[in-house]
């Protein structure tokens, strides 16, 4: 098991350190595999989300795709040139807005979906505190 993991990790390491500006056809094909499988999986998973939760779904996927913050962090933190750093900084800010805001608002919405009517008091408090 641990040997397998090591091989996988070594492979990933090798592909990840492949030249920054050049993408080998093998690497491109491997990325296409990931894309195709993710697309299939996404179709399966998301078709099961009921229309009831379509708005939270949209904000949830939005939060998740803000994983591009990972790319932005590398851009903002590398020592290449100031222009890249500044572009990276704006990108980190924009992506972080989506990470934090997306997960928080999804949770705020999901908290509201109740099967049975809640106690009147809490309901009124919620309404008041949410304006």
């Amino acid at each position: 098991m641990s040997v397998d993991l090591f091989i996988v990790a070594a492979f990933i390491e090798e592909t990840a350190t492949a030249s920054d500006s050049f993408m080998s056809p093998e690497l491109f094909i491997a990325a296409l595999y990931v894309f195709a499988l993710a697309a299939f999986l996404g179709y399966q998973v998301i078709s099961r989300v009921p229309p009831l939760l379509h708005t939270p779904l949209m904000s949830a996927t939005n939060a998740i795709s803000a994983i591009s913050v990972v790319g932005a962090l590398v851009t903002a933190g590398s020592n290449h040139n100031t222009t890249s750093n500044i572009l990276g900084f704006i990108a980190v800010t924009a992506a972080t807005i989506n990470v934090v805001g997306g997960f928080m608002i999804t949770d705020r919405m999901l908290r509201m979906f109740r099967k049975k009517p809640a106690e009147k008091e809490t309901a009124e408090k919620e309404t008041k505190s949410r304006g």
Partner: protein
Amino acid sequence: MSYFSELTYLLASILFIFGLKSLSHPDTARRGMNLAAIGMLTAIVGTLVRHEIVRFEWIIAGLIIGSLIGAAMSIWMPMTAMPQRTALSHAFGALAAALVGVSEYYRHGETLGTFKMIALGLEVLLGGITVTGSLMAFIKLQDLIRGTPITYKGQNIFNMTLFVATVGIFAYLIFVPTATVLFYIMVGLGFLFGILLVLPIGAADMPVVMSLLNSYAGLAATATGFAISNNVLIIAGTLDGFSGFILSILMCRAMNRSVTNVLFGAFGAETSLVSNLAHGEMREVGAEDVAVQLAYARQVVFVPGYGMATAQAQHAVRELAELLIARGVTVKYAIHPVAGRMPGHMNVLLAEANVPYAQLYEMEQINPDMSSTDVAVVIGANDVVNPDARDNPQSAIAGMPIIEVDHAKSVVVLKRGKGKGFAGIENPLFFKPNTGMLYGDARASLTKLAQAVQQA
């Protein structure tokens, strides 16, 4: 260290998929999304320890500012503004992707390989289109400019030409990645294209546009993943892209229209469509009469539309519904897929007003139940209950599935004034003998009804 970050990405990918899977039921959704948030945190930590990252001042500043803005938006944004917030967040996500793309090109422009250039090009194009497209959608949703389609002569031809030119530049760049000026022109064209794309789309078609922009924003992240060879970006972006894609198809199906028709049809621009069934007198009713009807009904169905959101009437509806339930009336809410300005808009508003989701019914579930409904109360909805869509093949919305309120024993329409609906289409429902019109602000009318029900 790099093994470590790759493993955090793997963990994040798994938790993201798990989180989305948990959204198949409201009871599991919160826990699943918390796991997804943990996955995100892990991936961010895993990135911060990478050896390429040597300076932290920009990162820390970005993380702090972003967190503050994001948290503030999610805490204080009212639920009725959810479509606007979502549009903004599409813009932010796409902006991040586009800027990472531009920065990558700025660094490697001279030496880019073919595949990487393809990925980068897609990234900045999809990113650019989504940024300005979403901002346009935001402006329309916020009513900063009128929501009706903005059209001009030769619009589609102009857009087509621009599109072909953009694709041409892209193709040239793939073979000659060093054409720096062309790259930045292409970025600019992407931004311009987003504006032009959303300009001719009416506010009633926003659910489709929101879903499409959601999809583009996700695919921009996917392209970023290709460009920087990062699998978690490809996976998360694709999940987002496909989610948006599926939603747009569902929305289009709920309007019986194609995506092409939504994007290029400038729907709702013409207001001269006349229904041969929509004539006669509209019957105005008073709150007291309606209250008596409601109080002695066996089953009442509320059909909310965008008008409920603009009037902030969701709490008033719930209060009225609770009074009726206390009297032994069966109360249901019928939700059309495209009611409101984004997928699931009405569900969220009613959930905010503390309506239990067991009372919310989808169109297919409620329609067979309509003939045994005593009173159907239409709150600020129009096209989604227009019987012309079913009966009149000449209608602009012919074939659109509707909530068949006209099958109920009687219908009460809460409407601001006597004007037409958003798409400017006549609604014969208003002229039927068993339809009563209750004019005025929806929230005020509902409060009046609740008071009258208490006395009935």
